[in-house]
């Protein structure tokens, strides 16, 4: 695709766990403003890939470039400062802090850290944006699951990311929450945030993603518009499984 203008460029990245190649020579590009779905059956290496981009894991080989500069192997805090924010597969909020402080956690240490009164008003704005203004003083641990997800998103947005990684952010929501959550992501997308989302909820992928990268056994097996990519024979085989996928 548009390699020269790619915001994120993953090139030949490999990560092993013992003898298992969780990610095996994977390459893909994400252009500025795009929403890309990272799909694949369980165990295909999607979360590992997210962890490699966010710095939670270091790749054994390959390069990961954010707007041209190599970030592969940097610690997560440096990567966060360069403009990559993430949510977690198992939602993580700061349990003993209230919602306002949870968002300030994202504001205080990013590329353009804010603190004090400015951070307070920005945090209020972000809580409003995700529909949680009324929960500002509630502790993270007292929130419902949906509200924790919203709070996590607000914290990630507080970093003013150039790239937002959503790791199964829609998982575990009931149908009405799902509608709400997709609406929220659409709003964020409207504000021009580039996103990579690992997701199993096909409705969300169809309605939100410009493009999909589909993985199986650590490698890319298809890439393209969601409807087309998902229809490719190898993808169908990977999901529905014949002898090839074990």
């Amino acid at each position: 695709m548009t390699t020269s203008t790619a915001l994120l460029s993953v090139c030949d990245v490999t990560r092993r766990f013992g003898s298992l190649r969780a990610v095996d020579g994977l390459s893909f590009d994400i252009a500025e403003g795009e929403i890309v779905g990272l799909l694949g059956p369980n165990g295909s290496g999607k979360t590992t890939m997210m962890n490699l981009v966010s710095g939670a894991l270091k790749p054994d080989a390959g390069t990961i470039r954010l707007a041209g500069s190599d970030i592969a192997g940097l610690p997560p805090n440096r990567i966060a400062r360069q403009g990559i924010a993430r949510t977690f597969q198992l939602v993580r909020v700061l349990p003993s802090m209230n919602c306002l402080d949870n968002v300030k956690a994202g504001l205080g240490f990013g590329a353009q850290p804010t603190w004090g009164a400015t951070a307070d008003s920005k945090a209020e704005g972000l809580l409003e944006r995700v529909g949680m203004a009324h929960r500002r003083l509630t502790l993270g641990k007292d929130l419902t699951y949906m509200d924790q997800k919203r709070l996590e998103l607000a914290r990630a947005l507080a970093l003013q990311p150039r790239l937002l990684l959503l790791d199964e952010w829609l998982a575990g929501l009931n149908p009405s929450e799902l509608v709400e959550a997709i609406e929220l992501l659409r709003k964020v997308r409207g504000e021009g945030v580039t996103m990579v989302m690992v997701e199993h909820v096909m409705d969300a992928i169809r309605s939100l993603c410009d493009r999909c990268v589909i993985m199986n056994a650590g490698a890319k097996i298809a890439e393209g518009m969601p409807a087309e990519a998902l229809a490719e024979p190898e993808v169908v085989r990977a999901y529905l499984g014949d002898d090839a996928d074990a």
Partner: protein
Amino acid sequence: MTMNSRSTLLGAVLLLAGVVGLALLPGFVGGYGLSMAINFLMFAILATSWAMFSGPSGYVSLATVAFFGIGAYTVAVLGEQLPWGAVLLLAAGIAFVVALLVGLSTLRLRGVYFVIFSFGLAELIRQVVNWYESTQAGSVGRYVFLDITQEQIVWQLTAVLALLFIVGWLIERSRVGFALRMIGDDETVALHCGVNITLIKVLVFSLSAAFMALVGAIVAPRWTYLDPSIAFNPNISFQVLIMALLGGARRLYGPLLGVIPMVLLFEYLSSNFPHLFSILLGITFLAIVYMVPHGVAGLIDSYVQRYRERFPGRRVGKNQQKESAL
């Protein structure tokens, strides 16, 4: 905001009143009173500086006595050679550097591993000092003959406690303190929010170690005779831990609430049941962890939180009911 500045003002007034009170105290009490005052102040500083790091970060350290002992031994070795101010600075400096080195290599350990490591560290330092004193210096014990009175010890400790409260207050309201709370809640989140967690942990750990060493140095002249089993007595680490937990380690003033009853209790136990002291110490520990896991300050906080949730002040009404029904 106004509530914040009001509590800051209240804190400042209380601090000032405490300093004046303690500074005047030696004029009103006798030897026993002074010795109790020294105990209070010593444990107040140790527990507050312990909680400054361990409270927000959740890294439970049993190395308190390692730094306390470093301070005491700095006085025992150099007390007569250098001016007193220099000795104190050196004690704090040595502890800071030791904590820095230890922290860099071990603060990656989480939970119980860190607890055990910190305990081991204190024992290691004690044994090393023991070995050095008996094989290289010739005798296990040392005498500390310094012309420092009980009154002067009280005054110095008061000054250090005041300084500690100011430093602790500055840290608490700074981004460093906030980051430390994030680390205590979820280290992974802190890291992915851009926090340099190693730097923050090591910095505050070392700072708290410096204060612990200052206490050790200031109270050392009281002992006259010093050996590693006195200066590095592991009971001190446990006592400090219990006091901070009883008072509540997540608030700057919390440990103080634990120090006062505990010093009295320990005084009572050690004078009436000297042989059962360790057993009773353990029982006290169990009782506190079981009954007030977040300390007295934690109890106060949870009342405040409940009150705030019931009366959030603003942005309540229709909106809240509609959204919470979701």
